[in-house]
């Protein structure tokens, strides 16, 4: 996953016609499990692609974020029986195909979360065998605010290969040695300089579609003095505490651990599953004491973590502006609107 700056790799740019991008998936699928966007009902999901024909690079965003390929919504950590414990590992080589810049940023954040101080062996094993084929955004989704968070719509690093839609073909850039290795499995034609210029032109057009509502640094300042702002009480009345926002968030990482025992009361598994700070029992301890019994404090925990604490933890805000929480909130809570309200707008 060693990543070099794009500028060092001009020579490695190539082109693939749009109608052949599925073949690219098929080529990779001979060596890796390829996970990419495909249609599910009216929405899109990141799932294993049975063939390149399923690939839908015109997707706006996936329902669940790519972290599900690295820490599963529910996974077995180890099995136990008698006096034996066996770690369960299911990592294999995989390509995450067509990830948007916001989602790639989210993975680089999770890389730190899962390695700081102690390394999470499940995440690490999968991550080491994960290749990222990213896709610059040439359209802007309804709830996207990556530009504001500095995580899109284009990507500078964190990818092995990077695609950009140039109309009838994709520009393919190499971002790592692993990316070069991926290309070795494929036969692409080199890109003339003029197509690279075309890329910059298109991406500039996309950037202009964003309205710059607020600076990230300003969000932090607003939150720093707003913990007791009366608007929180109103927001907590709107919030259902359902936890949707955390399930679809690409940078949420909380999990709870449970044992499940088989009927012989001897064999069992320790499993973990995604948890949500919005849920009532998230901070519950023995004797029924709850450290965040009010929804208001749980809602604050979620937004302060994303827009304030995360930066203290790893140096970057925990929100990448993908807009999934906005799309999936039944109460229509939008992080930027919350900050604007706290600011008094």
């Amino acid at each position, binding site marked *: 996953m060693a990543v070099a700056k794009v500028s060092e790799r001009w020579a490695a740019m190539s082109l693939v016609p749009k109608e052949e991008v599925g073949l690219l998936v098929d080529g990779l699928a001979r060596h890796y499990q390829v996970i990419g966007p495909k249609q599910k009902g009216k929405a899109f999901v990141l799932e294993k692609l049975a063939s390149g024909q399923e690939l839908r690079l015109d997707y706006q965003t996936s329902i669940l974020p790519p972290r599900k390929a690295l820490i599963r919504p529910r996974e077995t950590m180890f099995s136990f029986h008698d006096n034996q414990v066996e770690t369960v590992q299911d990592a294999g080589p995989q390509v995450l195909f067509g990830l948007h810049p916001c989602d790639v940023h989210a993975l680089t954040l999770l890389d730190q979360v899962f390695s700081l101080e102690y*390394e999470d062996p499940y995440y690490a094993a999968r991550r080491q065998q994960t290749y990222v084929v990213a896709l610059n955004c040439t359209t802007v989704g309804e709830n996207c605010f990556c530009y504001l968070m500095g995580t899109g719509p284009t990507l500078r690093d964190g990818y092995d290969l990077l695609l950009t839609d140039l109309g009838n073909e994709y520009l393919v850039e190499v971002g790592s040695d692993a990316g070069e290795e991926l290309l070795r499995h494929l036969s692409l034609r080199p890109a003339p300089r003029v197509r690279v210029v075309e890329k910059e032109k298109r991406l500039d057009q996309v950037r202009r579609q964003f309205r710059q509502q607020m600076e990230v640094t300003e969000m932090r300042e607003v939150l720093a003095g707003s913990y007791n702002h009366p608007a929180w009480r109103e927001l907590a009345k709107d919030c259902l505490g359902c936890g949707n926002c955390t399930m679809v968030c690409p940078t949420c990482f909380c*999990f709870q651990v449970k044992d499940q025992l088989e009927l012989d009361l001897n064999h069992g598994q320790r499993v973990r599953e995604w948890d949500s700070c919005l849920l009532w029992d*998230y901070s519950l301890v*023995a004797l029924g004491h709850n450290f965040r019994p009010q929804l208001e*404090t749980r809602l604050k*925990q979620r937004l*302060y973590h994303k827009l304030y*604490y995360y930066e203290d933890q790893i140096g970057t805000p925990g929100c990448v502006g993908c807009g999934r929480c906005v799309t999936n909130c039944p109460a229509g809570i939008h992080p930027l609107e919350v900050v604007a309200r706290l600011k008094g707008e």
Partner: protein
Amino acid sequence: MANPYQPAPVKILAVQRETYDTTTYTMAFTDPDRQAAYRFAPGQFNMLTVFGLGEAPISISSDAEDRASFQHTIRHVGRVTNAIQRMGVGDTLWVRGPYGNGWPLAQMEGRNVLVVAGGIGLAPLRPVIYYLLNHPEKFNRAEILYGARTPADMLFSNQLLQWQTEKVKVRLTVDQVPNGDAWAHRVGVVTTLFQEMDSQPANTLVVTCGPEIMMRFVVKGLMERGFEASQIYVSLERRMNCGISKCGKCQLGPKYVCRDGPVFAFAELTLLPEPVLV
């Protein structure tokens, strides 16, 4: 790759009943090499597993210099801890750790130490008390204030008064004395002992652990007496599912209580947006 989530077996070597709902277990890793290599700092905790029921963070209550075994003083109030209550000498538990930062022992050098404990909160402080007793040269004077709900709730009742030395004073109180119980000490919440304690703010380090409501009044009472937030250290309880700053549940502001705590200077906590102990 070693899996930090995977516990190792320990054998229960001794069981000491402390109160009607609390028991001290002496244990050692069944692998002698692991036990020989095991070190912990006073204030750290282990994750204890009963397979099939789950895992719970429990502070270590023994003398950190005892390398042959370690102890957990466990109040049986949850799924895992209730299962442990049904265990006895020779039974196997699964343990991983130690985790967390521990009490600021180095800062006690040349200073007075005030220990304020409430209920089960004395368990994570007992290793500090052992340290003070083992190393009288490492501090100036110490005072231990311990409060429990009733005399029957007192932990380590056969040890408490033996901890008194020329340098260490012990003061006890209970919230109430049920009819007929013998009780020769103070009645009232632990902060009532502030009226009679010798400890003064100057050159004193405070370490406290107990229910949050108790610590809140301890901090408040001490600060009213002139103690600074920076000289009061508290040990916090939070929900923990991993102990290694991954599951996220113990997060308090940008801190992970499991990794950056459980011991915090109260001054650190006052800087967090979310109020703690206020």
